[in-house]
């Protein structure tokens, strides 16, 4: 194992770097896109159920199929990493917009009413009151999306772009365990690290949650 790493550290590092990029860029884009979409699901109650259903269907499209089809739809090159980025962004949005909507819906009406009574208008109430209160739920969704994205990137290796997944296919083509195991370990560590970072951000931005135990983050 150590020997494999020392012989191949460049390959492994390049794979890791690509993995980070391919997994986290979609999270960033997806998070930004999901906030307004999720909000629409709350602002217009009729929109909530179609939103949940469409997200469910999007999430059940196999990633490999999406990787293969996006070039046809987007006109990108078949080996362009953009295909992976867009596909994972779609999954992120599918997962997060629902969470954002659920988080905002779960805000206690009493809180909203108090804010209104204090003179908050809709936009400021949303940004200053509802969104912060919904944050634990939204960030819990973000953790799930981040971790599953990091695991999904590897499927891209089946078409030659998959970050650490390339270590899987490489090992598999030779029936050689080391690269596969190293790929799995790095992928899990990366997911753990990303998860930890989000938890720390969550602690920093929701200090009140530490006072009320069991804030509903399942």
């Amino acid at each position: 194992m150590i020997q494999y790493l020392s012989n191949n550290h460049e390959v492994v590092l390049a794979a890791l770097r690509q993995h980070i990029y391919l997994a986290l860029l979609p999270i960033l884009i997806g998070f930004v896109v999901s906030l307004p979409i999720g909000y629409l699901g709350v602002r217009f109650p009729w929109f909530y159920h179609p939103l949940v259903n469409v997200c469910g269907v999007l999430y059940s499209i196999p990633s490999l199929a999406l990787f293969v089809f996006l070039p046809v739809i987007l006109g990108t090159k078949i080996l362009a990493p953009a295909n992976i980025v867009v596909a994972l962004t779609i999954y992120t949005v599918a997962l997060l917009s629902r969470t954002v909507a659920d988080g905002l819906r779960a805000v206690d009406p009493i809180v909203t009413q108090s804010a209104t009574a204090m003179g908050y208008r809709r936009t400021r109430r949303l940004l200053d009151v509802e969104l912060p209160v919904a944050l634990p739920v939204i960030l819990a969704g973000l953790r799930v999306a981040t971790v599953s994205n990091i695991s999904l990137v590897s499927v891209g290796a089946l078409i030659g772009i998959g970050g650490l997944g390339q270590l899987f296919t490489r090992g598999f083509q030779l029936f050689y365990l080391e690269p596969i195991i190293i790929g799995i370990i790095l992928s899990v560590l990366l997911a753990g690290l990303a998860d930890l970072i989000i938890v720390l951000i969550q602690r920093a931005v929701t200090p009140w949650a530490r006072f009320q135990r069991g804030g509903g983050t399942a």
Partner: protein
Amino acid sequence: MFRIRTIGAAITGIGLALSLAACGADSDPLAGDTKGSGSAAAVTVGSANFAESELLAEIYSQALEAKGVTVKRQFNIGARELYLKALQDKSIDLLPEYNGALLAALSTGGVPENISSPTDVLAALKKVLPAGTEVLEQSAAEDKDTLTVTKATADKYKLTSIEDLKAAAPTLKVGAGPEFQERHQGLKGLESVYGVKFKEFKALDAGGPLTMKALVDGDIDVGNIFSTDSGIATNKLVVLQDPKNLYTSQNVIPLIRTEAKTDAVSGALNAVSAKLTTENLTTYLAKIQVDKQDSATVAKAFLKDNGLA
């Protein structure tokens, strides 16, 4: 408001880190999108999804680098049907090919009759290459597709050539890469040329360890194994002869987009082709398949041993 700003700052921070990671990487993941501007930029070398193709692609890459050409590696793309498309949409510039298999893939309705010698194949191949692509000089190294069985199966059904399979095939399972189902040099040709029709097809990998393992374990009876595979000797397998030349000569040859062909590139690759033989390819491939060395190390050794780097 404070909290939202903190999140905003966090997002910006992550974004910044990402863009830095992208800039710092020598293999900028999004570069595939923007290249092809025609400058004396990097040459992208591709490979199919099996060990030998990756080894050859790595040998090409290092030979090019030794001549000062900047190389980008885009290995392990998939089967021929897929990587030819990648070549045409300019995702890759060149990759190692096999003249007979490429000819069979590009000829509609199968390879013309009576073409089997390497020179005939090359001449026929040049007529059918997709626009904007060409081949460089071919090497003496051959790696044929074979139909291979275990010693036990060969004895049981008295098999020495593919012709003998005709009677036994309806009770046998064949295993190969998924693309084998649709290729002339696969189930189609076996049926039209030899009248061989198997009981079942099992989609495994392109001459890889999965097919080898399935064959040895008895999950399949007949496997599509590459002739350079060291497992044939180790597992005492029987390669069935091909008297009707379904698998024409299969010399290793670089396939390249004309736009990417410079004197430096063709010079470097032709020098590699001049040194490649079936024997040394088999030897160096075994270093990967058996000794589990990585392709970069093996390619380096090949170039050094042959005075190319």
